[in-house]
């Protein structure tokens, strides 16, 4: 009898030990997996999402007409699917561009450091490298904002909140236009300022070498 009681108690304890954690873990993981796509696509925190929506609405240039509102409510779900594709693409663009610009600045930094090691005057080159970095950073900030706005557009409840959707779309368009300009600016700077300064450095190195050989 005593043994039976002891066994029962052991079984109960084991059951509690197993079931209690499971009752916490399983709902947690299932909720996480259920909401994961939304949270990933969404924002890092819901609070700032609300704040951003407020910010989008504040930037809306003109009030939404009834016709526009109805049009958005009618079509926005399909629009959100298209914007989701665009957001995914912008993520790929971000990865590619960050890698490319990073490679360029890395090369320039290495070159500048190497030139400094041989007591070469690099102030002009360094100035250009610094300016390139400023431009690249500005581009990356805009791109991050653009990507965030696109992600927000895919999660805004557009059928209920057409004004926020429209405002976010306007913001995304502004950022997109800005990005086109910044991308062109970075390219132009590299071609018209950085490369000529590299050419100048090259000519100086050649003349230094020639002077060294003639001695």
């Amino acid at each position, binding site marked *: 009898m005593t043994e039976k009681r002891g066994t029962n108690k052991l079984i109960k*304890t084991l059951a509690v030990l197993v079931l*209690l954690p499971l009752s916490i873990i399983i709902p947690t993981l299932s909720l996480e997996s259920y909401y994961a796509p939304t949270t990933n696509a969404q924002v890092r925190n819901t609070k700032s999402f609300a704040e951003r929506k407020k910010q989008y609405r504040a930037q809306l240039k003109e009030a939404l007409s009834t016709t526009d509102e109805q049009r958005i409510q009618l079509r926005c779900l399909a629009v959100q699917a298209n914007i989701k594709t665009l957001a995914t693409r912008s993520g790929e663009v971000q990865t590619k*561009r960050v890698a490319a610009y990073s490679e360029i600045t890395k090369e320039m930094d290495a*070159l500048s*450091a*190497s030139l400094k090691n041989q007591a070469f005057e690099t102030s002009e080159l360094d100035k250009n490298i610094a300016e390139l970095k400023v431009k690249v950073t500005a581009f990356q900030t805009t791109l991050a904002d653009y990507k965030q706005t696109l992600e927000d557009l895919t999660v805004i409840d557009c059928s209920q909140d057409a004004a926020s959707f429209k405002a976010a779309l306007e913001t995304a*368009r502004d950022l997109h236009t800005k990005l*086109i300009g910044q991308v062109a600016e970075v*390219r132009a700077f590299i071609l018209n300022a950085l490369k000529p300064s590299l050419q100048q450095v090259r000519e100086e190195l050649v003349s230094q070498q020639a002077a060294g050989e003639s001695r």
Partner: protein
Amino acid sequence: MSARLGKPAVMDVQRPAQPTDIMPTAQLPVTNASPAGLEVPQPLPEQPQQPQTIQQPKIKGGKGPIVAIILIVFVVLLLIGGAVFYYLRSRASSGTVPITQTPAAQIPVADDGYTDPADIDATVQKIDGALTNLNDSTDFGASDLNDSTIGL
């Protein structure tokens, strides 16, 4: 069980084969009727020795449950911690691409440390290669967010 053992019936002694369940103790006659019809109180037969109920050793209620509770709480906290860690790690890994740049101090200086015109040419080539891989008009098409493109 203990109630049955605690109140043994008188008849149980006389008819031990009879199970007590069949004849409840309340219905058992305590007196025998005399032939004259007078009821003579019979001396009660000697009470059989009450079977000694085995005293179960009481499980001390002090430490057992406390240890179990502590163990449960510990396991629960461990699992919650694990779940939170897993969640945070999975969320962090699915974040956006870091846009930080490598500080100049961490960049290895090229080859032998001496820069010649060939190094400049190599750098220019690398820059051109990086720029060639970037297609501005494809990456940021002018009509990407037009009403017609997005279906609005």
